[in-house]
């Protein structure tokens, strides 16, 4: 089930789109238009893109703040991300919540909450409902290395294992949780060891290699879909910026960043495509042009959206 040439181009497009969205967010941030911080996925795009691209329409994802790429593949547009970050009226939550805190049941996207770990139990419920209704749906929960320390992560992982639910956990081990390095977060070397504690099969992949991530997700989703229970994929990567734009991350060794910069997921994929002659310079240019005009239009749209009127706050809390 290797991706076709067209699919490889699409993967490339989404990787670049994810990065361009981030860059545009930083632009907006520097212009003082973002309300709050910008949480970059720089260097981690292959995880969002590779995993989400391997899913089917009926599947469900529970992305976190660095999973803009997942949102884009599930059909949200760059404007949605911009509008959220700029707290504008036309954003998916109309300014009621921030950044990637939005979702859509029709697109199979659960809106994150800030409290890490909590979306995994919710994914269990989604998978439980799917099973009761005989729907071949997989629920995918994203979690950071830091997020696996939460009690809710544990309860969700254990519940998924016991119930043999069609849940895939994408554990992004980017070395850091805010300023805390992974070795202060856990005394294990790999998040696959966490999975062993639940009897969940697991694989560890190079999170900067989009095709490796994609292949791992395809296998994990197939495993889950076939009724064999949950699967955990550890994606090894590196957070290439601070926790958010305000954080200069001086606590991160420079050499580490240098090492990973050479392993930039877009560079790696370009190298692969070039080596295998899977994308001509012309094709590349055409994708880039498409991206640029898209980002320009999306950014313009978002920037022209007003802030919501105050009264919009008075939305009912009840259905």
């Amino acid at each position: 089930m290797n991706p076709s040439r067209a699919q490889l181009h699409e993967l490339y497009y989404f990787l670049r789109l994810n990065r361009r969205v981030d860059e545009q967010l930083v632009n907006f941030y520097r212009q003082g238009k973002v309300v709050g911080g910008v949480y970059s996925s720089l260097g981690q795009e292959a995880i969002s893109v590779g995993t989400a691209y391997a899913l089917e329409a009926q599947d469900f994802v529970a992305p976190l703040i660095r999973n803009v790429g997942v949102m884009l593949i599930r059909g949200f547009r760059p404007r949605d991300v911009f509008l959220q970050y700029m707290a504008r009226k036309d954003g998916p939550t109309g300014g009621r919540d921030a950044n990637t805190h939005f979702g859509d049941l029709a697109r199979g996207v659960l809106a994150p909450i800030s409290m890490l770990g909590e979306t995994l139990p919710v994914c269990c419920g989604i998978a439980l409902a799917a099973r009761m209704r005989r729907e071949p749906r997989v629920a995918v929960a994203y979690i950071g290395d830091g997020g696996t320390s939460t009690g809710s992560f544990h309860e969700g992982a254990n519940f998924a294992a016991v119930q043999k639910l069609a849940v895939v956990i994408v554990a992004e081990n980017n070395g850091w949780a805010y300023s805390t390095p992974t070795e202060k977060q856990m005394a294990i070397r790999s998040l696959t060891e966490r999975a062993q504690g639940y009897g969940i099969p697991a694989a560890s992949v190079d999170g900067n290699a989009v095709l490796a991530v994609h292949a791992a997700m395809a296998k994990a989703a197939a495993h889950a879909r076939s009724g064999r229970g949950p699967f955990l994929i550890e994606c090894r990567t590196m957070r290439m910026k601070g926790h958010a734009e305000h954080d200069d991350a001086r606590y991160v060794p420079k050499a580490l960043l240098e090492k990973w910069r050479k392993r930039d997921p877009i560079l790696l994929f370009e190298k692969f495509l070039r080596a295998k002659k899977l994308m001509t310079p012309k094709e590349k240019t055409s994708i880039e042009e498409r991206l640029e005009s898209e980002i320009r239009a999306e950014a313009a749209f978002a920037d022209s959206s007003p802030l919501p009127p105050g009264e919009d706050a008075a939305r009912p809390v009840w259905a």
Partner: protein
Amino acid sequence: MPILTYLDAIRQGIWEEMERDPAVFLLGEDIGVYGGAFKVTAGMLEKFGAERVIDTPISESAIVGAAVGAALMGMRPVAEMQFMDFIACGFDQIANMAAKMRYRWGPAVPLVIRGPAGAGVHGGPFHSQSNEMWFVHTPGLKVTAPATAYDAKGLIKASIRDDNPVIFFEHKFLYRRIKEEVPADDYIVPLGKARVAREGDDIAVITYGAMVWTALEAAETLVKEGISLEVVDLRTLLPYDEDTVLTSARKCSKVILLHEDTRTGGMAGELAALIAEKAFEDLDGPVVRITSPDTPVPFSPPLEEFFLPNAKRLADAARKLAAY
């Protein structure tokens, strides 16, 4: 009409909803094979099968979270807390995930979290709590606490059909003590509507849960002394029925707020604020609170008795207020 206990009324209500709507299912600790610590779900595994009656690990966050996820998909989960005291272990899922979802991004979250609460059975500090206020103070939830078997059935059915997260407080002291005629057919008691449990003229006693019976007992005593209590049973605490509360307060001009929960930050405060703001001109006396003191619920029977409000304490306060 058949006579049912409060417990069996809840059981019947859940059972009927399970039969009526295949989207309704149950999850919790020991609710299947064992039928629940208090047997509220007895027989349900046999009737509805293991897919709809799910025994879970000891994981309250996962229980609530799974209920949220299933609710998002259009199911109507009913999650049991073995005791409502353990709801503190799933608190974040309730307060930050379930409660805020609708407001933040739109989806309905039709789920019920139910279980035994309240004291009076010598359960000690961890099996006797009245922890409704944590949830009454969390926008996005609904909170209900029936006092009668009729209401217990009608409210559990309404809660299951409601499109929001409902926290359903069953009073374990009433489980087998209350036996009443309960219609065997389908009815609901709407959320958000209080009930005048007894009409009276002199003092409005506003209360809920097991204390409704305490208030009725005191009313019976006092009527012989010429003091007439009106007893309002709130039934739902969030949203609560302002109109009924204010009507009774205005009618009687004197008010006692009664609850089993501890005092500071309790429901009585909320009601006092409503009355002090909206019925100020009608008041002929101070608004009096009768509650348990600000301590954990002690275990030993004499201590628990000391801790809990009772009919005598209420009657004393009412006599004093009547004389005001």
